[in-house]
């Protein structure tokens, strides 16, 4: 197993909702200290680590640091916090969840999304999810004034969920989307550094912000770097659950990372799909085509940036994504790491940008 799983745990536990990715960036900067040629940060918080290559062809390897979260929108007379979602949630995974509430540079306090007890629900309410505007967060405060000692409007909340290895090589955690991509980028940098490799491509490892709201920092980064080719590392929702027909499973955990031919943001160039699948085949790395058009990621911005970029998205099949309990297979992490490494180290003339 790639050693990155240990780092991934640290990254997943970090507090990093959209536009508050600072704690995540701190973990990454500490991890990468001294392993790159150049480190730049733009005005909205994207971090780019460059490892110079033999050629001037630029490869952007990208993963986003932010996670889905909640933003505190008000505090009521009883001391409960009201919120708006930051990122796409299935409302059904929110009720009852434990949270950390806070902000960058602030102590994170415990809370939970409160729910009227089943005994207090009417017949019509039972069996139905509670709409987001009817939920609220309980931190134990007794009044508005009391709550204001700890929280202010604009603070964030993220899931409080530990990192658990279970079953046959499965892992559960929050924020796997996309700290998993971040951990893999760090792993690839580590490998290049430890083996003193000078890659063919000029490599730009990009840790971006704001993916979960769609107004993505990856656009700023891509426009700045103007890469020749881009690899987006992501986590993608899959439905490989008992009772689900095969054509709706999207992909299967344990069979390697997915390569997308199309999602809701990008129709990928067939030559890029072939390149990624071919690289997997050549190096004996399990990968699979994503069998369903769903989701979207930073590739949507990157492929249209700076006059057009040949882009491919490689994703780790992840169950229950955007919940407190994202589940993935550690073998897929390993395969995805190897595929990312082989892409980074691929001679330019063996790629679609030759």
């Amino acid at each position, binding site marked *: 197993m790639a050693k990155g799983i240990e780092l991934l745990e640290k990254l997943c536990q970090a507090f990093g909702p959209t536009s508050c990715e600072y704690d995540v960036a701190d973990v990454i900067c500490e991890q990468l200290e001294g392993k790159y040629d150049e480190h730049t940060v733009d005005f909205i918080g994207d971090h780019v680590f460059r490892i110079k290559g033999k050629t001037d062809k630029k490869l952007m390897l990208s993963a986003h640091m932010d996670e889905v979260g909640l933003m505190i929108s008000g505090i009521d007379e009883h001391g409960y916090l009201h919120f708006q979602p930051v990122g796409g949630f299935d409302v059904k995974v929110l009720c009852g969840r434990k949270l950390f509430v806070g902000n960058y540079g602030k102590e994170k306090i*415990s809370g939970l999304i409160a729910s009227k007890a089943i005994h207090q629900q009417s017949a019509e309410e039972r069996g139905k999810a509670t709409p987001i505007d009817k939920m609220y967060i309980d931190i134990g405060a007794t009044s508005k004034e009391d709550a204001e000692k700890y929280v202010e409007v604009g603070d964030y909340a993220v899931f409080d969920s530990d990192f658990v290895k279970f079953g046959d090589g499965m892992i559960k955690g929050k924020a796997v989307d996309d700290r998993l991509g971040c951990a893999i980028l760090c792993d690839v940098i580590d490998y290049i550094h430890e083996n003193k490799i000078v890659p063919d491509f000029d490599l730009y490892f990009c840790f971006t912000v704001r993916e979960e709201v769609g107004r993505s920092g990856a656009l700023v980064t891509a426009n700045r770097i103007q890469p020749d080719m881009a690899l987006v590392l992501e986590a993608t929702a899959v439905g490989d659950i008992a009772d689900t027909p095969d054509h709706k499973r999207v992909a299967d955990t344990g069979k390697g990372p997915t390569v997308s031919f199309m999602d809701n943001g990008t129709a990928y160039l067939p030559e890029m799909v072939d390149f990624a699948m071919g690289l997997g085949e050549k190096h004996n790395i399990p990968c699979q085509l994503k069998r369903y058009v769903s989701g979207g990621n930073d590739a949507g911005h990157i492929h249209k940036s700076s006059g057009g970029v040949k882009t491919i998205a490689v994703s780790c099949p992840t169950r229950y994504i955007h919940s407190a309990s994202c589940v993935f297979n550690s073998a897929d992490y390993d395969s995805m790491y190897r595929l990312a490494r082989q892409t980074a180290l691929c001679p330019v003339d063996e790629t679609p940008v030759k």
Partner: protein
Amino acid sequence: MADLFDLTSRLTCGCSVSGFEHGQEDALRYIRDKYFDEMRREPAGSYVFIRRAKKPGYPRIMFDAHMDEVGMMVTEILDGGFLRVTNIGGLDTRILPAADVTVYGKETLYGVVVSTPPHLQTGDRMKLPKVQDMLIDTGLSKEKAEELIPVGSPVGYRFKLTRLKNNRICGKGFDDKICAVAGIAAIEQLINEGYEGELILLLSTKEEISRAVVAAVYELQPDYAIVSDVCCAWVPECDENAIRKTTVGDGPEISLSAITDVRFTKRLIEFAKKNGYKHTVCVEATSTGTNANDIPLVGMGIPTLLVSIPLKNMHTYSEVVSLDDVADTASLVAGFIKELGGEHNG
């Protein structure tokens, strides 16, 4: 005062799904060794703890809290190591998708309740599946799951106890083990104050499904029964004009009901008023929804009262109580037991 957080942690960390309360034995032995002369398990599954009288003449007073909690049971093992389950007790399905659970098979295993991805959801997106249509992901192969998880194994919420502000805590199984904590704290206080009468703690089984408490009480035949359970705290989603608005932090709630014992309950209310104990009073005219419904009619009849601890998010893994309320309940119960003992003895 006993360390309420520590006691809560010990009592709520193990398996105690109704009918499967065996995961608590470490905690039960700890309680026996610290406070009681004997502990026994009744045929129906309740645990009886007795601290024998040091002097004759005291009434036999029993404190009851139920030790079981809601959960699930495995009914089928499917491809990919997914489990089909059914509910034990009244589960709130709103908190289940993507929830962490513990599967108590031949080994204690982690599991997560399947949350159907949005692209697979059809029809009304706010509608929740029934528990019987939800699955649990064990991350195991079907073969391995079949080997480790016999059909019939219980599944419970995963334990995580969290401190909130203002001495409030959040966790699972507070219904009703937080009341057991209050009872134990009351007994510790009585011991420290040199109370010499017999004290019976009943940690009863299966309240959430069949109220098996009566089996144990039949044999015990106490002179008085003090039942403690949790009550649903008022929250802002409830009726703003509700008469009953007891909430977390208001102290113990004393229940007046025609089916417990009005005279006995009024003695407690008078005692609390006279001595300045923090409390509220509510009316549950013909049903308390607790063991206090059943205990009064055991044997020759038993004077029974119900004192409740307000709790939010009942039957979830994020139940919230105030440890101040627990301490206030313990003090009230201890004071009242002393008064009952003094009357008979004096």
